[in-house]
């Protein structure tokens, strides 16, 4: 374990963890609203570590859906992680053996993935373990706080917290879009498609989980076709 890299990872994980605190707080409130106990909500957060999937999951529990439907819904909503894991597999240091890959996989969320893949050069276990810790603790403790104390917050504050996760997403995609024409194009195409899947009659019948995958695959193909990476870029 490289202490310096580990601490660098911890530092990079702090903003993610604080963002998660507010997002999982909202999840905790919703879980209790739907009839789960605070301990159940925390167990879900500690074993799943994913916002969209968990939210869909508690809604399915509330209507007593069959387990098969639960499995298929999680598969669809979370299939983007397979794409992310595949993408990140190209960036891992040689010190990432099977066990270390299995440990890190548990916390490969959208934001952790985005920060790890925008890190210059290859990433190894020291950095990734450091990066995981604060977001994981933030996710679990935010859920607990929301489930136990959420109702004590004034309504306007609970509403304002709802945008936190999107602020974080924008902070990840806008700076590289400013610098790179390629990223700008990919982001614009994906956003445009996403708007179509929401509002165009017919297209809007596709479930949100599938829509994200279709948007991401088409936009990334457009990017790869118009702006193939040079050898050096692709390795970085």
């Amino acid at each position, binding site marked *: 374990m490289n202490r310096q890299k580990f601490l660098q990872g911890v530092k990079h994980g702090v903003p993610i963890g604080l963002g998660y605190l507010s997002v999982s707080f909202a999840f905790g409130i919703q879980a209790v609203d739907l009839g789960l106990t605070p301990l159940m909500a925390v167990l879900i957060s500690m074993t799943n570590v994913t916002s969209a999937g968990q939210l869909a999951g508690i809604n399915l529990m509330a209507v007593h859906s069959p387990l098969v439907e639960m499995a298929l819904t999680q598969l669809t909503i979370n*299939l983007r*992680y397979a794409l992310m894991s595949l993408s990140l597999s190209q960036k891992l240091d040689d010190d990432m053996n099977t066990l270390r890959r299995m440990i890190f*996989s548990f916390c490969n969320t959208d934001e952790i993935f985005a920060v790890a893949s925008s890190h210059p050069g290859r990433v190894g276990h020291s950095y990734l373990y450091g990066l995981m810790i604060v977001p994981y603790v933030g996710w679990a403790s935010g859920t607990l706080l929301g489930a136990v104390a959420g109702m004590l917050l004034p309504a306007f504050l609970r509403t304002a917290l709802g945008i936190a996760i999107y602020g974080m997403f*924008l902070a990840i995609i806008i700076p590289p879009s400013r610098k790179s024409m390629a990223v700008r194009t*990919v982001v614009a195409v994906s956003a445009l498609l996403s708007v179509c899947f929401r509002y165009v009659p017919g297209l809007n019948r596709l479930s949100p989980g599938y829509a994200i995958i279709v948007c991401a695959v088409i936009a990334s193909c457009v990017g790869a076709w118009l702006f193939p990476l040079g050898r050096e870029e692709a390795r970085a």
Partner: protein
Amino acid sequence: MTWQAFFPYLIVMAVVTYLIRMLPLTLFRKPIRSVFIRSFLHYVPYAVLAAMTIPDVLYATGYTGKGSMNGLWAALGGLVVACVLAWRGKGLLTVAVAACAGVAAVQGLLLLF
């Protein structure tokens, strides 16, 4: 919800989610040669986050597509603040907190009308 009903759901959710993340990362070891596939994978995170943000962010603060528009104005306020700060290269936490503050500010302004 009883614990007997809860546990099967919990296990199914956790196992499916973990396998989706773990299998590609663990089984896939070789560097990919194809420039197209490498470029594709490089663009995936930006594409995923863009699709998750637009247009969902407009519905993040209580707007449901019908009824009161206040939630939509609040979301737009937060969105503008987030975009400006992100454009200036501010960090994740700064942008997230400022977006919340933007939403709260618009909510406050709307009380005046």
